């Protein structure tokens, strides 16, 4: 195959290939396979270490870029160096967490929209996508004479939220009016639960995997969970004009108020992230924080370390809409307060704001300018009486908590904590469902039991979780992730399906795991599924038609290839390393794995049947032959050779 083949296929930006027919596709797949391999080997040769092959064996490498390798690597190294320099200029994340001599206390209020088809007090359905002002009942617009009608369906997600936060749901809660004038508030007041909230006294546990540093475990108390109305959406227009969209006005929110016990900025961000995960896991809330469905206000206070007594004066930073904003705002506000106190000043109780990407909080209003909300029990609304049986029922039906799920992924399926956290956090929690679907399909493939259906959420773990489920997680996370930067292109659905059907991915993983296909073939198949070149359900057919099955050569053939590699004179220096290893006394010298990989790389390159060779098998054979054949031969030869040299010298 000549280089001319490259010109035949135009590379697409997505990493796919423009293909027309099955025959062409087969050729392309093989071509790609071959080309990538050649590129890789060339690079390995140049690097003179075999590290890349090692990773290939684990089938976890990404598809390497086929562009000339040297500049790319140089670039990568450069950018790494750059980022290292940048990091050393900036304090590390860990260094930002604590200021010696000072204690920090953070309390957080989180607002999240409940997952319910109606607004809190009207049957209108809130929607972020409907045309403006089309989801508005008379009460949402506060028309004179309209009355609130509590929508009991709201209670289901609200109680789920309370339970997810381990709160005690109160037998009776009440609604109060909170008054302030703003055009996002048509009634002039927001209906909330101030005096008698829905639930009280919960807790959220934060650990390292939630974003805490070190092995610390922080239990953050939840003071209360209350139901309340959302405000309208406003859009500022040029010329001081405000557009108001009432679609969101009156939508049902929960407000979650933590106790002020968080001690680090990372804990504050971790708390918000954890609460979002818990709410999503409990199916209580609709959208993620970054999409505006979750907003947080933080209360920050500092005092000198070890000083007894109450918390310092607290300052509220309002309207934070991302985890990063929470952490950055806490850092900035803490540092500002410390600077004030160290300068001999007093921290003033006030409300401050935060601009994304900023470095300082800014004052919005002081205490004297604080709005008196004039809370008043709403005379139009009776108490909400929650039957304990409803709470019991919802508690029984609630699925796994995020924590339990992470424990499961780590303990049962053998994932790393990092991968488990990433997996559960992707695509609004849909990615992990996809993972379960893939596992279930894998299990079906493995047992060959096509008729039996497992529970969709918790498939049985594979027999060898160490490899198969990790392999599956790797593909669901990293391989899928590398297909595109925009994960919305995957179109992941809540029941865990996407443009790459879980069954097809399982087929690829299954055959890869069984060594039926090579990693390269597997990568190409995934690409084909994503680009649509392989129709769903046609993975096996494609492998058959394009003859992509991996037919491994025999052990003897491997040995022959190994012998051929070793016969080349220029590897003698490499072989000497092995000789030294086996001849040493005391065991200080490490086995020269790198050299071994170099030799395996040579095998893959020299072998005429490279397509039918597995690097893992090649490595095994090479390792064995070095120990059992080449080194003994060298030892014998070293004796003989030494004599020969001696003779020569002697001549």
């Amino acid at each position, binding site marked *: 195959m000549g280089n001319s083949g490259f010109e035949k296929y135009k590379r697409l930006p997505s990493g796919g290939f423009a293909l027309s027919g099955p025959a062409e596709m087969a050729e392309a797949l093989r071509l790609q396979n071959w080309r990538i391999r050649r590129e890789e080997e060339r690079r390995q040769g140049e690097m003179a270490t075999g590290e890349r092959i090692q990773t290939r064996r684990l089938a976890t490498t990404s598809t390497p870029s086929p562009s000339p390798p040297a500049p790319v690597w140089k670039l990568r190294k450069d950018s790494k160096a750059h980022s290292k320099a940048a990091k050393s200029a900036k304090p590390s994340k860990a260094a930002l967490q604590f200021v010696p001599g000072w204690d920090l206390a953070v309390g957080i209020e989180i607002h999240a929209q409940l997952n319910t088809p109606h607004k809190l007090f009207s049957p209108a359905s809130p929607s972020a996508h409907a045309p403006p002002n089309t989801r508005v009942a008379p009460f949402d617009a506060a028309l004179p*004479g309209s*009355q609130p009608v509590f929508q009991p369906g709201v209670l289901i997600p609200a109680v789920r939220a309370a339970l997810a936060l381990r709160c005690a749901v109160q037998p009776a809660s009440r609604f109060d009016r909170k008054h302030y*004038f703003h*055009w996002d508030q048509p*009634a*002039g007041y927001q209906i909330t639960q101030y005096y008698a909230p829905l639930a009280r006294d919960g807790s959220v546990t934060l650990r390292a995997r939630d974003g805490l540093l070190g092995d610390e475990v922080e239990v953050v108390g939840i003071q209360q969970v209350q139901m309340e109305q959302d405000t309208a959406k406003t859009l500022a227009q040029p010329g001081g004009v405000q557009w108001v969209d009432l679609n969101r006005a009156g939508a049902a929110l929960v407000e979650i108020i933590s106790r002020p016990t968080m001690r680090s900025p990372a804990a504050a961000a971790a708390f918000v992230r954890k609460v979002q995960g818990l709410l999503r896991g409990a199916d209580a809330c609709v959208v993620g924080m970054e999409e505006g469905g979750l907003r947080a206000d933080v209360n920050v206070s500092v005092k000198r370390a070890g000083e007894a007594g109450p918390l310092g004066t607290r300052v509220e930073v309002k309207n934070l809409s991302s985890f990063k904003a929470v952490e950055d705002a806490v850092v900035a506000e803490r540092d500002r307060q410390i600077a004030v106190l160290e300068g001999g000043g007093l921290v003033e109780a006030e409300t401050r704001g935060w601009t994304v990407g900023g470095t300082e909080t800014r004052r919005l209003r002081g205490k004297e300018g604080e709005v008196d909300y*004039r809370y*008043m029990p709403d005379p139009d609304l009776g108490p909400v009486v929650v039957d304990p049986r409803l709470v019991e029922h919802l508690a029984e039906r609630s699925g796994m908590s995020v924590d339990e799920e992470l424990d499961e992924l780590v303990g049962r399926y053998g994932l790393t904590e990092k991968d488990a956290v990433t997996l559960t956090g992707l695509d609004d929690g849909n990615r992990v469902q996809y993972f379960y679907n893939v596992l279930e399909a894998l299990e079906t493939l493995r047992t060959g039991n096509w008729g039996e259906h497992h529970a969709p959420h918790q498939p049985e773990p594979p027999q060898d979780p160490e490899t198969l489920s990790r392999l599956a997680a790797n593909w669901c996370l990293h391989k899928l992730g590398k297909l595109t930067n925009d994960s919305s292109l995957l179109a992941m659905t809540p029941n865990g399906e996407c443009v790459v059907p879980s069954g097809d991915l399982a087929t690829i993983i299954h055959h890869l795991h069984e060594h039926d296909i090579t990693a390269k073939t597997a990568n190409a198949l995934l690409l084909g599924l994503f680009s649509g070149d392989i129709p769903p359900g046609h993975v096996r057919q494609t492998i058959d038609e394009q003859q992509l099955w991996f037919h491994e050569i025999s052990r003897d053939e491997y040995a022959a290839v190994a012998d051929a590699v070793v016969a080349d004179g220029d590897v003698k220096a490499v072989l000497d390393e092995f000789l030294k290893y086996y001849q040493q006394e005391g065991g200080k010298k490490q086995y020269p794995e790198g050299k071994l990989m170099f030799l395996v790389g040579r095998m893959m390159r020299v072998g005429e049947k490279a397509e039918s060779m597995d690097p893992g098998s090649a490595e095994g054979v090479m390792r064995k032959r070095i120990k059992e054949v080449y080194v003994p031969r060298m030892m014998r030869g070293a004796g003989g050779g030494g004599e020969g040299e001696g003779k020569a010298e002697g001549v």
Partner: protein
Amino acid sequence: MRTGFRLRTLCLRCSRGYGVTHNFQQRRLLNHFVSKEEIPFDLPKDAFTLAVKDNIATESLPTTCASPFLTPYTSPFEATIVAQLRERGAVVVGKTNLDEFGMGSHSTHSAFGPVTQPDSDLSPGGSSGGSAVAVATGEAAVALGTDTGGSVRLPAAYTGVVGYKPSYGMLSRHGVVPYANSLDTVGLLSRSYNIAELDPRIRAAWAAAAAAVLGARARVVPVSLPSTRHALSAYYVLAPAEASSNLAKYDGVRYGARAAASDTYAASRAAGFGGEVQRRILLGAYTLSAEAMDNYFRQAQCVRRVVRRDFDRVFRLGNPLVDEEDEAPFDLSDVPEEVEMQSKLGPAQVDFLLCPTAPTLAPGVDEARGMGELEGYVNDVFTVPASLAGLPAVSVPLAVEGDGRWAGLQVVGQFWDDARLLAVAREVREVLGVGRRGREGEW
């Protein structure tokens, strides 16, 4: 004779509220209608005319609450009570003038000017003064009013018609623009007692009850309601508090003229509300403020509860809203000293209470306009206790001999005892005589 109807309608529709008495000869500016409907010459046999206070939403006519904020406002939906009455044959003749958002006792605090009585310059009472006059002139057989602290009963007493404030919550408030939600009650005004016959089921129920109760002739005993002396103060804390909240939506953003951008809310509200409404909003905003909440709003809520307990102690019937397990039984040691004992078991218990509707006869319109605010508030002293307790009450008119004015007598019953109350009020009215406003055969 109905020949005058069309002419009168045209005349009334030409501007805001030119009222004409049923006697077409005597045309005077009564100002009791804010807007009028053209009604057909021949009403169906079962139909009756209905005037609607202009703080109750109608689809056909604007709903202004006599406030500049809502002068161009027409509700996209109709109040439940109006729809229910239309189903039963009501023909809406017009929307009646009132004190702005129902706040006032003489129907003088209106963006459309004060209302006057047909044959005199007397105050028609408030805030449902327009509705009372519409009934008194015969232009409407029945008028809808709202009674928050006496706003149906007081005008009824002053204009010599019957005013009925049902138990709180008995009639739907959907479409009633709120003044103080926990007190607002839709009430009915009529010259005759036909209002009680709107629903034959209610009539049948109370007819049976009335026969049983009044057959044995009523016995009259004096009773004491010691906490009612605090009721007026409590009312004027609670009602303005709720009003300040309810009226927050009138901010110049969607209602009323929007003032300059720098202080839109304050300026729009200062320009849009009348003086009495502003006074009550300020009062309410203060009593709800963090510093005053405990001393005023909470205390007033406590008084409200004590007032209700006073009534419960006096009535023979229990209050269906009160869970007996939650409430400790009355202990004689708790009964104030001044309460007269009927027996060793305690003071007398009664079925109904009879008391004046208002402490004074109707003042002249000019006199009422010149009154201080406090004087106006004091007028509500007899009506407010039943409002705080949510009890049903009927004001029946009694002609004052030689004066030409009317005194109102109020009959109050236990909560949800409306059917028996109406029966008794009818007996009382028979005893008192039909009077000028009633016509023979209307019973």
